[in-house]
């Protein structure tokens, strides 16, 4: 796959404080890239560098094969975490102004905005002032402004904050649709469920350093611990429990079930295959549940950060 964005060894410090330390990333065209990290890790600094708001002290950023340059701003749509619009300006005028700043002509801007206002069913807001709208409504306008110039690269910093679940879903679908239409998306978030649902690729930044980077599937594979969740109906649960405890690392599990069965999480050593566990379990009772435990993004996030402390 082709790369849309390359960040090469970028460092940035403010006085004595290092915000980014030698960070490199690659974002594939047409993917959704999750930029994760705790508060203050340096995500926003990196995003601001990609947006040319701040300049890196060293390192380079390549967009679509060219080093970052001023006219690239029209290819990037940016929804900052700290968002806001001119309070006393009318929605339509404001959206037109911001779209034109991104390089659209007035006519183009009008067409595109009309399309989006129709699509999100917010035509009636055109002549209202931002201060008359609710926070969620203003967020929608801001989303439209971010995508109206059809950027190749979309950068969303916490895009779902401030939305109710219905609107969050609506925006999520719009983002997926934009990706399907060919845009590349960078996502900065703490909300792990949206990472799980949407991202193909993630990078984890902690204390100015990148500590994890890769395809979500690969990372999950790397982080799986050969742990299985089992459910077993058996005559003598105490004896089975004792044997399992002897042979493997087990911990209690709880999943919904209609049976009153033995429930455990069993971690098996690399030397033993899952088939061995299954054949043992079937020999002592009726197996009702057998699932490999896949680490969630949230688990990976917490585990990696703690490892790097």
């Amino acid at each position, binding site marked *: 796959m082709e790369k849309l964005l390359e960040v090469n060894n970028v460092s940035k410090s*403010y*006085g004595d404080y290092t915000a980014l330390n030698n960070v490199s990333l690659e974002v594939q065209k047409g993917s959704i890239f999750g930029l994760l990290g705790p508060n203050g890790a340096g995500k926003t600094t990196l995003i*601001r560098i990609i*947006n*040319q*708001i*701040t300049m890196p002290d060293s390192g380079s950023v390549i967009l679509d094969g060219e080093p970052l340059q*001023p006219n690239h*701003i029209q290819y*990037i749509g*940016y929804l*900052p975490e*700290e*968002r*806001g*619009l*001119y*309070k*006393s*300006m009318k929605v339509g005028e404001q959206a037109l*102004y*911001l779209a*034109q*700043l*991104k390089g659209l*002509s*007035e006519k183009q801007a009008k067409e595109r905005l009309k399309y989006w206002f129709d699509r999100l069913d917010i035509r009636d807001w055109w002549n209202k002032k931002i201060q008359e709208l609710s926070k969620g409504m203003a967020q929608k306008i*801001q989303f439209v*402004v971010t995508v109206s110039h059809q950027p190749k690269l979309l950068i969303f910093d916490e895009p779902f904050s401030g939305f109710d679940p219905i609107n969050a879903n609506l925006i999520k679908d719009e983002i997926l649709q934009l990706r399907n239409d060919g845009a590349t998306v960078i996502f900065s978030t703490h909300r792990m469920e949206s990472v799980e649902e949407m991202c193909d690729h993630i990078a984890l930044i902690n204390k100015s350093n990148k500590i994890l980077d890769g395809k979500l599937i690969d990372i999950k594979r790397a982080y799986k611990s050969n742990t299985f969740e089992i459910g077993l109906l058996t005559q003598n649960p105490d004896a089975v429990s004792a044997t399992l405890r002897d042979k493997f690392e087990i911990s209690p599990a709880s999943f919904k079930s209609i049976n009153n069965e033995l429930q455990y999480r069993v971690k098996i050593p690399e030397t033993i295959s899952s088939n061995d566990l299954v054949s043992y379990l079937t020999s002592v009772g009726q197996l009702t549940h057998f699932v490999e435990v896949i680490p969630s993004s949230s688990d990976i996030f917490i585990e990696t950060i703690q490892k790097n402390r």
Partner: protein
Amino acid sequence: MNHLSLILKREYLTKVKNKSFIIMTFLSPLLIVAIFALVAYLSSLNNNTVRQISILDESGLFANEFESTPQMQYKIIQNTPLSKAKEEAEKSEVYGLLYIPKTKGIDEFSNTITFYSEDSPSLSVMKDINNVLETKANNLKLREQGIDSETIKNLHININANQETFQGMETSKLGSGLKLIFGGAAGYLLFMFIIIYGNMIMRSVIEEKTSRVIEVIISSVKPRALLLGKIFGTTLAGITQFLVWVILIGILSTIVTSLFGIDPASVSPQQQALEQGVDGGAQEVIRQVLMEINNLPILNLIIMFILFFVGGYLLYASLYASIGAAVDSETDTQQFMMPILMPLILAVYVGFFTVIDNPHGTVSQVFSYIPFTSPVVMLMRIPFGVPLWQQILSVVILFLSFGATVWFAAKIYRVGILMYGKKPTYKEIFKWLKY
């Protein structure tokens, strides 16, 4: 359309369409004209009151010297003791009682005459009375010495030295006053303009910061373009407002004067009378004023006014913008305002005291080169005739400093606009310059 003109257009339109801006634009001239009309009306009321003054002249020498005017009615009392005259004066609500005792010699009048009144009498009344008394006493004294006052009058020669520059240009005292008015008005206008519209720019920067729209904008345009767009947009709005004011005040004052028949010249008839006495006729004064205006370097003044006005304003405006960027709210701006206002106030003081005293002295010269004071000080000096090279040098310094200030302000701006939460110190702002 490029970014700068887009930003400029938006800044201008939002300012001009703003309700309070529109109200201020149309209400201020109304208020100003209303206040002037009120003052003119009140002072004409004041002039119309008739003051009655009783005179008890025991010496019999002065009573006939006082001539009643519409504003001053003199009543001569005779054959009444002082105590009774005072009582009557108090009862009959006259303005005051002038008591001239009988004395042995003329010299004694200097400290024996008394004016009794309810409150302290007005200065102009006392001046008039003293004048009459003094003239008469002097004449009496002269006659005592055997000299006729008419002879003295004929002997007296009025000297009025003609003033002329080496280039052969006629000057006069009146001209100096006029130059002062021109220079002072220009300097003061600039001072007001900087304060009003500098603040407006600062507020507009703070507004973008507090509404958090700034990060979206700054991801589309360069901070410098935003800064310049803001300054120019607000300046244009300011010029629009100023023009409306000038036109409205012109129209309104014409209407008011013709409607109420208030003649601005009638406000100070005494002063006018005085000038007439000196120069021999109001027409002569007008002729001299016109001549002096003609003599002023008008073209030079206009060109330099525009250059210094624009340069000085832009210099301060970029400083105001960087203050706006450095703080979170208007209440935090105070500590940073001081260093901006100080040189501005200094310039006005230097202008009004030093330049008036000696337009080409060392202090005036030095301050007319320092970019933070030069717009005001130089504008005040130019009517007195400043060599062209000095003017050009000062303008060049001013515009170079404007370039430097914009660079400096853009640095603070690009860091400051993304800083939230805490009020920066001077030390931190200095650090931002290095980022």
